[in-house]
């Protein structure tokens, strides 16, 4: 009986802590529970406006500008569908980075999606040409739900 009560308390507490704090549009998240299907590490999660997908952003290089010479920034996106399951089909992924206060993007070099493997999309060739507040616009079609976009703010200081 005591053991049953103890189990019930632990189960309730566990359900409480895993069920709260899901209202933010971007939040930190550890490695996916289905880590076997994704090779990307931990990072912020961005939620699409139309709520058709969410994407965890793991930076492999950066985010930085580079003071003497521009540094190439690279990151990995892990997509989940609206049911919060790892996506089985990710298509038409594009990334644009711009400075909202200035109205310009990254100039000559544009971010490129190198490859898409399962739920992961690998992005490179991202150069921040100045410090300040940047916004990344990520567009994708996840599991056939149609194109949707998420916006992620980044404050580049060095």
């Amino acid at each position, binding site marked *: 009986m005591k053991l049953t009560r103890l189990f019930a308390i632990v189960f309730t507490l566990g359900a409480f802590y895993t069920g709260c704090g899901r209202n933010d549009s971007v939040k930190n998240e550890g490695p996916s529970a289905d880590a076997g299907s994704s090779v990307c590490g931990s990072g912020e999660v961005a939620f699409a406006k139309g709520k058709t997908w969410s994407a965890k952003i793991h930076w492999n290089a950066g985010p930085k500008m580079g003071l003497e010479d521009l540094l190439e920034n690279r990151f990995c996106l892990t997509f989940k569908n609206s049911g919060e399951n790892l996506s089985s089909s990710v298509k038409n992924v594009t990334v644009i980075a711009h400075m909202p*206060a200035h109205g*310009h993007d990254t*100039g000559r070099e544009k971010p490129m999606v190198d490859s898409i493997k399962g739920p992961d999309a690998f992005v490179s060739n991202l150069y921040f040409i100045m410090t300040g507040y940047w916004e990344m616009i990520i567009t994708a079609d996840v599991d056939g739900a149609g194109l949707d976009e998420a916006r992620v703010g980044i404050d580049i200081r060095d």
Partner: protein
Amino acid sequence: MKQQLRFTSEIGPRCFCILLVTYLSLFNSSVYACASCGSGGDDPLILFPWETWKAHLGFARVSDFELIDQKGETGYEFGPESRNTTIVSFGRAITNRSFVTLTAPYIVNQRRERQMSGWGDPMVAVRYTMLQQSLENESIPQVQFIASYRTGDAVSVYETADPARLDVRGSGVPEARVGIDLWSAMKSIKYGAAQTVTTPVGSKDSEIGDVKPGVAFRTTLTTGYGWGDQGKVLCGVNREYSFKKSLNGQPLEDSEMLAHTAFLSADAMVQRNTNVRFTFAKSLGLLDHRNVSKSQTLTMAVQRSL
């Protein structure tokens, strides 16, 4: 081949400038060097009431760039370390109260050992003197109405093909400007003020959407001292504020621009028809700046009435 092309693209403007300076030095025409008319405004070339044709040749070097972000904090940008501009301007009187000027800049952007050059956006300006100064009442200032138009064809940040944006020489959007210029120069102590409003004409279709700069207000206050028609020294301040830019018709948050600069200039009449002017301008560090690159500018110019 690349060396020959570079030689050709650079030698043309340099030869033209040398010939222009030589011509201006040899030509002789009678002109009063009341070089204070309208100097509270923004245009490099002002015609005096009795002048018919006038030419201006200026060299400006802008350096010490310092990026200021939307919070007013110092940042860094991967761009030109200096910008050298050759400014050519011609003016023609329309009536004894109005004149038109055409100004074209040739810009050289440099970062370390790399540089790129080309023409910037030309500007046509008209001034009409609503109130002329008079010896009968020296305290009444001259009041001029200003109108100008600058094209937006030169390469801008929206279509740059260089990683350091050395090919950027324009804003990308044509702009129209109107304003009032007040100038009092009949006495030794001189003062002036100008207020202009610059509005974009159209927008720029960029990779991220349709971008439109905000309307900009520029205020200039000038004062100084002159020695007859021999020369004068002026100092002044500029304040420029731009409202928010817009993207696809929606205002971009925190995109307002604010800049304050101070300038010091000295004019000297080297011949009866020729003036030389030196100007030093620098961003005022003690005042607020937002979304601008602070810098300092050194300019030398020759003006001659033809």
